[in-house]
């Protein structure tokens, strides 16, 4: 693919604040129609990256081309073609859902009628049609996210930035929003940049992932590229009411994708390759006549890695920052 076809193409992007470097020489690219996940714990620099790429913040150094434009000299032109869901939905509580969309529509040069029509369509699509004329004050986080998502899509942007789209949502709302994002990305080849600290979410949606930690890019590639390292150990906790007996441990260990099984006070922890291995683990328990009270598949969370890295960094201050990807395959503290 030629350079010209890239939706985002940035090189050595750096920005610091008085408190320190927020983003250190970031180089990455995004191809048309792909979902690119920026993955990292809080403070990794995801939001800063998004602001830089949309021309809201200026870099200290580095260069970027987004939709073929220079974000820092052609910002208005660029922002006409991008849509952003900020982490905090940023709706004005004094207005109704639809009024919040109308304002943005007018700013984007739509007529009032066109903005209303398009806004209403989107709200209905996101199941918020019945709340369109209600003031946003008192709406749940999930409802706000959906309205803000509608606002970001009002002008049918070519490039969509989503900052922590599922933060603060309950599991059901999370699933709704993740499904929604999946369908948005499929819309006529729209490119999506997804900032998140949930590995699972990124894994589900992203075609490529950039793993950031403390402003530094540690890994960049397709989930396939990274999965081997990132998901080599998928943790499943089994509640069996009592410690797993040695024959069960042996049976579990002999399963194809199970790397390790350890008995615990109430059952066992099994390390498998992926979520798909969970049914076979449960089946093995049943075959061994164990009573299964609960199965808790635990998506790897970057917070775990963050703490592991912090501990490691504290142990050896002189050594350079450890590789994040490597850290994923290290045992996750429980």
């Amino acid at each position, binding site marked *: 693919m030629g350079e010209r076809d890239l939706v985002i193409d940035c090189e050595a992007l750096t920005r610091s*604040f008085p408190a320190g470097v927020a983003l250190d020489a970031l180089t990455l690219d995004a191809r048309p129609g792909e979902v690119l996940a920026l993955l990292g714990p809080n403070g990794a620099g995801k939001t800063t990256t998004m*602001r830089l790429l*949309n*021309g*809201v*913040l*200026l*870099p*200290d*150094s*580095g*260069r970027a*081309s987004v939709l073929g434009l*220079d974000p*820092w*000299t052609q*910002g*208005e*032109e*660029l*922002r*006409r073609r*991008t849509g*952003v869901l*900020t982490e*905090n*939905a*940023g*709706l*004005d*509580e*004094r*207005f109704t859902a639809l*009024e919040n969309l109308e*304002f*943005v529509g*007018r*700013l*984007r*040069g739509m007529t009032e009628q066109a903005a209303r029509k398009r806004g209403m369509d989107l709200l209905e699509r996101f199941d918020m049609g019945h709340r369109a004329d209600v003031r946003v004050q008192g709406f749940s986080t999930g409802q706000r996210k959906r309205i*803000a998502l509608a*606002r970001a899509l009002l002008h049918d942007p070519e490039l969509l*930035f989503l900052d922590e789209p599922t933060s603060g949502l309950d599991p059901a709302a999370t699933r709704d929003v993740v499904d929604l994002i999946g369908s948005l990305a499929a819309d006529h080849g729209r490119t999506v940049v997804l900032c998140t600290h949930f590995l699972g979410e990124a894994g589900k949606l992203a075609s490529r992932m950039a793993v950031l930690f403390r402003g530094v890019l540690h890994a960049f590639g397709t989930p396939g590229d990274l999965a081997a390292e990132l998901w080599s150990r998928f943790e499943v906790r089994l509640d069996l009411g009592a410690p797993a007996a040695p024959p069960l441990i042996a049976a579990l260990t002999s399963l194809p994708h199970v790397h390790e099984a350890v008995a615990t006070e109430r059952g066992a922890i099994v390390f498998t390759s992926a979520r798909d291995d969970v049914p076979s683990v449960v089946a093995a328990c049943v075959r061994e006549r164990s009573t299964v009270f609960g199965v808790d598949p635990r998506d790897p969370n970057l917070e775990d890695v963050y703490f592991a890295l912090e501990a490691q960094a504290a142990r050896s201050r002189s050594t350079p920052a450890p590789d994040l990807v490597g850290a994923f395959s290290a045992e996750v503290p429980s």
Partner: protein
Amino acid sequence: MTALDPVRDVAAPKQRTDWGAVRAIMRRDLAAVTRSKAVMLPMLLVPLLMLVLLPMSVALAANGSALDVTKILNMLPGRLAEPISLVPNNEQLIILVLGYLVAPLFLIVPLMVSAVLAGDAFAGEKERKTLESLLHLPIRDRDLYIGKLLVSFIPSVAVSWLGYLLFCVVANASAWPVMHRAFMPTRLWAVVILWIAPAVAAVGLGIMVRVSIRANNTQEAQQLGGAVVLPLVVLAVAQTTALMLSGIRLTFLAGCAIWVVAIWLNVRGARAFTRDRMAARL
């Protein structure tokens, strides 16, 4: 293509103001403000107190007892007291207070209204957490600034002018039993209202914009702004009173000086108002 280039902004071709975007900002902010009690209440109460209750009580006082203002007049330097000593005794209180003393005080109205509105327009975005999504929209920094400026400036001038109309009606009506004529508006007041009041509103704006970029919420902005604005008010009121009594020319010149300060403040404010700076303080 490269990053921070200090001359880039200066070298960029001057682009025309996008009035559609400016209007969209203004319409939204105006609609929002009219729904906000915290903004509307002080905006209406203060003018009401100053422009309706004050003239009524002065007129009543002048009507009821023969309050003697010659003592006050004697305290003033001869030249300053002159315009008032010329009118009949029973009219002196009304002319002194309503014709002269209230006018400078009246400047609190545009100052306060513009400060409240600008605080809401600039610091309020941060407080309501709507600033980040606003910065991601295709509106130029300068157009955003202009929209926010106008939506604070125009209503504060409008409130001042409408308030003054109200003041004239109330003052003339309630002083009628003493004056037997409509003595408002005076030429001096016209200078204060048409020339000085908008300048003072612009000063209030200039200060609040600077303060709002730093402050994290409206309250903080109001406090910071108040600390700067209040001493100015006292100074301005005292100065204007003296100037008014010494004639229309000096009053007009004082207005010019205030305009210079206002323009300087706002030009600096516009320069400080950049996306990057706002995004760095989110």
